[in-house]
């Protein structure tokens, strides 16, 4: 299930207004569309081994996602620049770095999704250097999520925007909204985990403008 809607930002409108006053000939800026993607299965489990506590039924494979195509890319294409971002459990990977094939990268921005209007020229994109040194740190409190060890609930940290450089070198911003199936408002111990709901905005023209 996918929901698409437009976000017309005040900043975008203002930018247009000022631009028009200055120079009448400037083409109208088309706002980048924000999309919400739900229930991307990120190597889901069938249960937990009661003695070891290890998850059962996992494949170890990432759900690879193309932001341009707005769909999951087959794992057979993992060694290409067709995908931009991948999900497996709480680990999020990007398509760039010594262990990837694309030109991608990412950094974690603190702020709201709407406030990320452009990628600053000074921004440095980290890449996936090794399985234990990822662009988006796969650790509670250090990347995109908090893990509560008493309730075993994974919560996306509000105000964390993943600014992404795609596999083919374009820019996008992603905000993870939920880690549980159907994005319940308050996940419980019985909620099914490893189902990503996120929203994103992708700039197809290769510019650093993200609104």
């Amino acid at each position, binding site marked *: 299930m996918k929901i698409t809607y437009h976000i017309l930002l005040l900043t975008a409108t203002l930018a247009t207004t000022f631009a028009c006053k200055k120079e009448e000939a400037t083409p109208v800026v088309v706002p980048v569309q924000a999309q919400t993607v739900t229930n991307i299965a990120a190597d889901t489990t069938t249960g937990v081994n*009661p003695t*070891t506590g290890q998850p059962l039924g996992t494949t170890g494979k990432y759900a690879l996602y193309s932001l341009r195509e707005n769909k999951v890319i087959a794992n057979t294409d993992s060694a290409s620049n067709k995908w931009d971002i991948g999900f497996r459990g709480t680990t999020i990977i990007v398509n760039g770095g010594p262990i990837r094939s694309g030109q991608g990268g990412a950094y974690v921005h603190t702020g*709201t999704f709407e406030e990320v209007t452009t990628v600053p020229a000074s921004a440095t994109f980290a890449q996936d250097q090794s399985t234990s040194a990822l662009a988006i740190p796969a650790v509670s*409190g*250090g990347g995109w999520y908090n893990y509560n060890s008493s309730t075993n609930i994974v919560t*996306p940290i*509000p*105000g964390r925007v993943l600014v992404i450089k795609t596999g083919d070198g374009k820019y996008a911003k992603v905000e993870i*909204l939920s880690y549980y199936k159907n994005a319940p408002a308050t996940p419980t111990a019985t909620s099914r985990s490893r189902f990503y709901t996120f929203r994103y905005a992708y700039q197809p023209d290769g510019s650093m403008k993200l609104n």
Partner: protein
Amino acid sequence: MLAVLFLLSVHQLPAQLPDSSGAKQLDAVVVTATRTERRVGALPMPVTVIGQPQIRQSGSLRLNDILREQTGLAIVNDHGQGLQVQGFGPDYTLILVDGEPLVGRTAGTLELSRLTVGNIKQIEVVKGPSSSLYGSEALAGVVNIITENPGRTNSSLSARYGANRTSDLTGDVSLRAGKTGLYLFGNRYQSGGYNLNPETTGNTVSPFLNHTLSGRLTTAFGARLKLSVSGRFFTEQQDNLFSLTDRRVVSGEGTVRDYTINPVLTHQVSDKWKLTYRYYRTGYQTTTGLAYQDTREAYDDSYFRQTFDRAEIVTERTIRNRHFLTVGAGFIGESVEATRYPGRQRFTTRYGFSQFEWVPSQRFTIIAGGRFDAHSQYAAQLSPKLSARYEVSQTVALRGSAGVGFKAPDFRQLYLNFDNAVAGYSVFGTQEVSAGIARLQQQGQIAEILLDPSRFGDIKAESSVAVNLGAVADFQKKFDRPLRLSINLFRNDIRDLIETQVVARKTNGQNVFSYTNLSRVFTQGIELDGSYRAVLGAGQLTISSGYQFLEAKDKAVIDNIRRGQVFRRNPTTLLTERVQLADYGGLLNRSRHMANLKFFYELPKRGISASLRGVYRSRYGFADTNGNLILDEAGEYVPGYVTWHVTASKTIKAFTVQAGIDNLTGYTDPQHIPSLAGRLWYASLRWDWVRKLTNKQV
């Protein structure tokens, strides 16, 4: 011969201290605030006294029952029922029995229901830091339980039965022969537990049985040397049964045991000079043996053993009846052994303290004191305190105090060595983290070290600077009105709060944690108290009421909100918004408003007494639900509530019958307050016997 003995014993009764105000309960004599006997009304710091009559009239059985009804005190649940004072968690209040500390805390909480109130003569609660006299843990305050002394020869027996198959059997006997007295006390307390969630396996509170035995032997050698030896033994068994998230059922027994032995030798060298030698040993141990019910495989098989030894010498000098000097020194040896700690850990503290009280006039008192604690594991600590009281008029007195309190890192924070096999993270105490990281590194489990593990060993004690300012108005003397009002404003600034800190990342994506001094928080508020006695028919009605306003917040969170760095997710739209300062609700588990209203009625001629008590807590934070780890949204609060308690009793000769209902309206909140059982009725019978002194004997 016997007659002579009894005659002597009458004269040996502890001298009744002059009761100048005539309002008995209102101006009791306490020892906790200054370590010397002082009238509550004459002290420069806020002190609450709960006497035995109030405990009995309230139908209380355990310490938590009576403390929850006092102004500014809240009973909070975290691995047991603990005490919150001035917005501090249970680990910041020292619990003493006859001036000696109780040990055995689980995650910082000392389970208050371990203590029966049957042998309590008086409970003294001092608010504000008292580390200047008592050292570690006396940061928020001190609760001192004064137990019965062998007075004249008497005895009592009481039995009570109530809802949830709860029974209590208490007996004591006090014997006196000449200068020697013996007091013995026994209590058996049993409950069938209760279940607030019938749809799940097991009980909310599992059935348990506990026994308390205590006693004291007092004797005197000559007129100036007195010896008192007290002891206590407590044991509890609980039958646990509960289901895990994967529906497997776990059952087994848990035991708790503690003991104390406390000889005290008092040497009254002269009228103006007293020496006290005290030795105290206590031990606390728990065992848990839980197994899966289907396979009988072990689920949790653990133990915890702690000992605490203390030797102390205190000297008190009075100079020209205006200067009172108290100087003391002592040595503490502690040890702990537990499933999750490597080997047997020991640490020691050497300390010295001194307090100088100056009474330049009847209307003015000033007390200055301080204590120095040198510890074997963490930095030495100096805790000064200054307090003063001034009588503006016969009615109004002002009081103020400023002081420093501290809390030492606990065993867990120093020595824990724990790998969570299920979730994959590890936690090490500050003294274990270097070795723990080295071991994990050798096993190839460490992906990245984020902080130098060797610097964790320099952990400091948590400390707070506190100010208490207040006024007391007693309308008895001047206006002959049995009305007493008091107000206290408090502010505590706490720094170096110890919290978990990520030290390294593991290759499995989980963290290695240790403990470090991180947060700065403050608590501040106002406490109001009032009581009034009215004549109602042939009897007397005492009305008392109290209120506390409290704010307790994390300074770093406030700074981050100001900088616009704190966000929250709207639970329905899942969109992110910025948290405003007004949304921040402060630390979890703190009610902004707490209040109580109590009526005690007595009709002595007919032996009738009754009480009605209401306790209110406004909403308080339970947990973060919107992902920003702070309290900022209505759904993260436990709703506020009121509980009402009622008792009535009638005394006929040596027998007293009492009946009562706790939680009259049956308010429950199983999800958030499992310790609040529904409506509980009970009935008890008490028999008191006092050896009468006949004319012949006198």
